């Protein structure tokens, strides 16, 4: 393959890399995206097996707001990528649930529903809840240079009931925290807005719709894309990323390099190596997900109300690396059938359960043990989750079951390259995207805008801030 020079090289064709590529190519930069896998999407991708299509990652797109509501991440994203709202074909959730052992809070895409739930079930906390909402609304969560502070500390100033605290944190952490037990407050604000103040939606055909739109824009903008060709090494010369060595042995040069593959993952590519920096900021939070496909609609079993259920049965909700292979005490149920598809629905019933897991306990198992453990934990996770749904006889479910699949931390590592299968990446985010090399920047998960809308905005922001703004003669 011919070696070449680009204005910008992007590592990784996930949501953030694709979005950065669209922006830069649209404004005339010569850009190429290098992706090791054969499918784009990164952590939010899709696959087919046995003639059936599956989504990975995406339960629901967060940050959903109705048409006409401006100034939110979704609106910014659509504008920046010149995407028409209808292209994403987003269908809103019905409702979701935070289900703990003795208490449940319902929330929808209308925050007043959750406000009322909190006021009814935690009357003594109602004033604090309002103040927390105000704090979140006025916080500048897109600042690229904000000082980190503990979300637990900030929330504790407003909410004093430990149960309510745990219930608020549970969805927010499950959908984006790379840190165990606490979050940086800026990250908390992003997720609080994305989940509670905005909301959930999905296209009926799932994440592939979003990826298809991005690929279409990418093509129109003239961005190059090399699949099954990752970047193997970033060669440093005079404080810059001077050359990129590709998996196929080829070499390219680029004026700017934007890496979406994660902080530690990027540091490990650097030559001379930056392994110690990588080691100090490596994530450990990973998950398993089970998928069951039924020939019935979940609504037939009384499972038709909730789009997403965040469940927990321990005294205190513990968001941390699982001690065993999987921690089934808490988790997330996703029922993709329960979105408002305007009269239509998915042809089959889908029941997904996500639980915290432990990478090391999955990573090195012999194949036979690995398969057996997958089967065992599949059953355990599903059983734990079903306690938070109306009861249905095992035999009834068994009879309706068409197919199952499951991903483990090992699957995540294999397909995304994330160290430890850490879906949400490094615990400490690098908001301005800067690295030790002056022309190498991070975007995506480890830049720190969360969710798939956040990921795309991350790619956009880093492209704007480090490449496009600089090109208009800005002195920095």
């Amino acid at each position, binding site marked *: 393959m011919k070696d070449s020079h680009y204005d910008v090289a992007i590592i990784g064709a996930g949501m953030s890399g694709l979005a950065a590529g669209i922006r830069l190519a649209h404004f005339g930069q010569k850009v190429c995206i290098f992706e090791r896998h054969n499918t784009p999407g990164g952590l939010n991708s899709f696959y087919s097996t046995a003639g059936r299509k599956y989504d990975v990652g995406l339960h629901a797109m967060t940050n959903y707001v109705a048409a006409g509501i401006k100034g939110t991440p979704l609106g910014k994203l659509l*504008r920046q990528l010149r995407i028409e709202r209808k292209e994403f074909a987003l269908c809103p959730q019905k409702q979701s649930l935070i289900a703990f052992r003795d208490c449940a809070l319902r929330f929808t895409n209308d925050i007043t529903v959750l406000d009322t739930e909190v006021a009814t079930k935690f009357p003594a906390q109602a004033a604090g809840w309002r103040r927390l909402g105000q704090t979140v609304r006025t916080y500048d969560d897109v600042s690229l240079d904000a000082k980190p502070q503990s979300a637990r500390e900030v929330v504790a100033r407003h909410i004093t009931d430990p149960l309510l605290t745990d219930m608020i944190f549970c969805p927010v952490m499950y959908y984006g925290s790379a840190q165990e037990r606490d979050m940086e407050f800026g990250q908390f604000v992003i997720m609080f807005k994305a989940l509670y103040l905005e909301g959930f939606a999905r296209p009926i055909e799932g994440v592939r719709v979003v990826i298809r739109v991005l690929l279409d824009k990418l093509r129109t903008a003239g961005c190059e894309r090399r699949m099954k060709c990752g970047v193997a090494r970033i060669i440093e010369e005079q404080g810059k990323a001077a050359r990129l060595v590709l998996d196929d042995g080829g070499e390219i040069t680029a004026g700017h390099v934007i890496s979406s593959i994660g902080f530690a993952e990027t540091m490990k590519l650097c030559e001379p190596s930056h392994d110690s920096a990588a080691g100090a900021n490596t994530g450990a939070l990973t998950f398993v997900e089970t998928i069951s496909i039924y020939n019935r609609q979940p609504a037939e079993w009384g499972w038709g109300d909730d789009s997403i259920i965040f469940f927990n049965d321990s005294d205190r909700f513990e968001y941390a690396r699982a001690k065993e292979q999987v921690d089934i005490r808490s988790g997330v149920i996703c029922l993709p059938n329960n979105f408002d598809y305007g009269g239509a629905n998915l042809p089959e019933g889908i029941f997904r359960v996500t639980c915290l897991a432990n990478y090391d306990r999955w990573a090195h198992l012999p194949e036979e043990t690995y398969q057996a453990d997958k089967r065992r934990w599949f059953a355990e996770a599903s059983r734990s989750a079903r306690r938070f749904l109306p009861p249905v006889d095992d035999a009834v479910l068994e009879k309706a079951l068409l197919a199952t699949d499951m991903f483990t931390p090992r699957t995540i590592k294999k397909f995304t390259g994330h160290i430890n299968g850490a879906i949400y990446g490094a615990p400490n985010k690098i908001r301005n995207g800067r690295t030790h090399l002056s022309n190498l920047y991070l975007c995506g998960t480890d830049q720190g805008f969360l969710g798939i809308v956040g990921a795309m905005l991350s790619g956009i922001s880093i492209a704007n801030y480090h490449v496009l703004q600089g090109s*208009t003669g800005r002195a920095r």
Partner: protein
Amino acid sequence: MTKDNCKKLVIDIISDIAPDEDLSAIKPDVRLRDQLQLDSMDFLDIVMELRKRHGIEVPEADYAQLASLESCAEYLTPKFQAKP
């Protein structure tokens, strides 16, 4: 290139980057930010589109000149006229 043509070109750009805004009643002498929901990302896009479509460069020091439609026309029209 007249100032009116110039205003029209700016409106064309805004209608493409912010298709969800109603541009039918923009007051030329009022700051765009005060009558439309435009943030710094959108203003960067106005600058970038001016360069892409018309070859007009707006250095960052001059961004303030793009505050209103009137000031856009004032600042940009000579730049259009100076084009070969």
